């Protein structure tokens, strides 16, 4: 891939030693565009280092925070696992020439760091819930099972304990496919209209409604397991 020198290309400052470890320090204020990320993943080895450092930093902090908050209720120290899980998640984000990382679209309102944290939470939930297999399938796994489409019951009890909700959220993240989790985030976290989300994901309105119903049933089933 031929390219002339770019004015916005990142440059590495001189390596310096910090606490006995060599580190590379990057200039402040560097922003990655979607196009630039695709270029880096397509064949820019020098810039790949900077991208990986940025992504790994977001992953590590998200993993540490998630594990600390989870471990607090269990009286455990998760420090040993931060690096372990972070590396595993980074490798999965970069697999297949960065297939998952290429999904980031700043038009959907998330910075690169925010998108990476979102995917990290889902990946970490899958690891902690012991789910195996390919979490990056295009189609939902468990929630694609043919379940009766239940109408919401007016007496449905919503988990009121924040800790119960946290446990449920982790289990839901683990059970949703990558695509399903991104759908959940767009509809319920970012609170975008369904018709807008359908267009973003290239789905019909009916397909998103059907997914929504399955997700609701899955959440209720998981909630019943937490507090029958």
């Amino acid at each position, binding site marked *: 891939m*031929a*390219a002339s020198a770019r004015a916005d290309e990142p440059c590495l400052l001189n*390596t310096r030693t*910090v*606490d006995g*470890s*060599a580190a*590379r*320090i*990057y200039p402040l204020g560097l922003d990655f565009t979607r196009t630039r990320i695709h270029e880096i993943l397509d*064949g*820019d*080895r*020098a810039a790949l280092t900077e991208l990986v*450092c*940025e992504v*790994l*930093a977001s992953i*590590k*902090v998200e993993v*540490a*925070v998630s594990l*600390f908050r989870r471990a*607090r209720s269990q009286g455990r120290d998760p420090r040993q696992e*931060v690096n*372990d899980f972070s*590396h595993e998640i*980074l*490798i999965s984000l*970069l*697999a297949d020439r960065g297939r998952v990382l290429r999904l980031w679209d700043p038009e959907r309102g998330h910075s690169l*760091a*925010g998108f990476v944290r979102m995917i990290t*939470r889902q990946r970490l939930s899958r690891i*902690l819930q*012991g789910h*195996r297999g390919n979490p990056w399938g295009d189609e939902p796994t468990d929630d694609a099972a043919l379940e009766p489409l239940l109408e*919401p019951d007016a007496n*449905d009890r*919503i*988990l009121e304990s*924040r800790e119960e*909700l946290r446990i449920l*959220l982790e289990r*839901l993240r683990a059970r949703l496919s990558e695509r399903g989790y991104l759908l*959940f*985030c767009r*509809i*319920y*976290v970012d609170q975008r209209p*369904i018709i807008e989300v359908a267009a973003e994901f290239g789905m019909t*309105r*009916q397909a998103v*409604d059907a997914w*929504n*119903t399955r*997700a*609701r049933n899955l*959440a*209720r089933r998981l909630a019943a397991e937490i507090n029958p």
Partner: protein
Amino acid sequence: MNDRPDPLLQALGELERDHARDHPGAWDDVLIGRRSAAEVAASPAHNEAEEQAALASLFTGPIPAAEVDGLIERTLASWGPALPASPTPPVVVPLFRRRSTWTAVVVVLAVAAAILLWLPGLWVPGQPQPGDMLVAYTVVERSQGLQATRTDNVPPTVHRYQSSSTIHLVISPEHGVTEATELRVLARDHDGHETLFEPVATRSAEGTIRILGRLDTVLPLGPGRWRLSFVVSRPGASPRDAAAVTDALAAGTATMPPDPLELEVVAPAN
């Protein structure tokens, strides 16, 4: 078609928003090297003081270059053909130079193959070779099992589990291992009978093996006291049964952490 937003999913979405809002993103800057740990630790934060202190003890400076480089090399290896160092125009090589280049490559490969074939003992399939020895592993039990009661006679170092308990074991290499490995568990009961089985486990990119989940799912152990040893081997080289473990260890095709793990599986209370 259901237009009503689901209240449970809405509550989960709100929780996810709170989590994202409270995320201490300043620590990203410490790991990238844009800010110092002292500066971030001293600045106001959304998260709780205890969490902030924990992050300050964990993230003291930028990510080491060696760590980043190692992860990139693994990534590139999984991608296939090497990426160029930077984007450069393709170089057209005249046809006669290409032929001579390929001829030289073929000759080098032929010489290397001849060396491998004619030097005795250099490479024997299935046998460990210098530089190919399995590294040492340690086992850490992260789960604590059931709480012991005052009347228990079980030593405090032996954790007790029910079949539905969550068990979390981490089998770590002494240094990063990128090659694939297999894990078997050698389980010895109180009568001295030994069984070798393959547990349900995951493996990280650095070679750490994790057994995490319901006991009856990941480690099929019946009620009673158990002594567990963990046998790590190259793919396809795991011992076939308990009797073959000693020979595999002697031959160097398997390795085992020196200290077995003791646990007790109890029947659920009525």
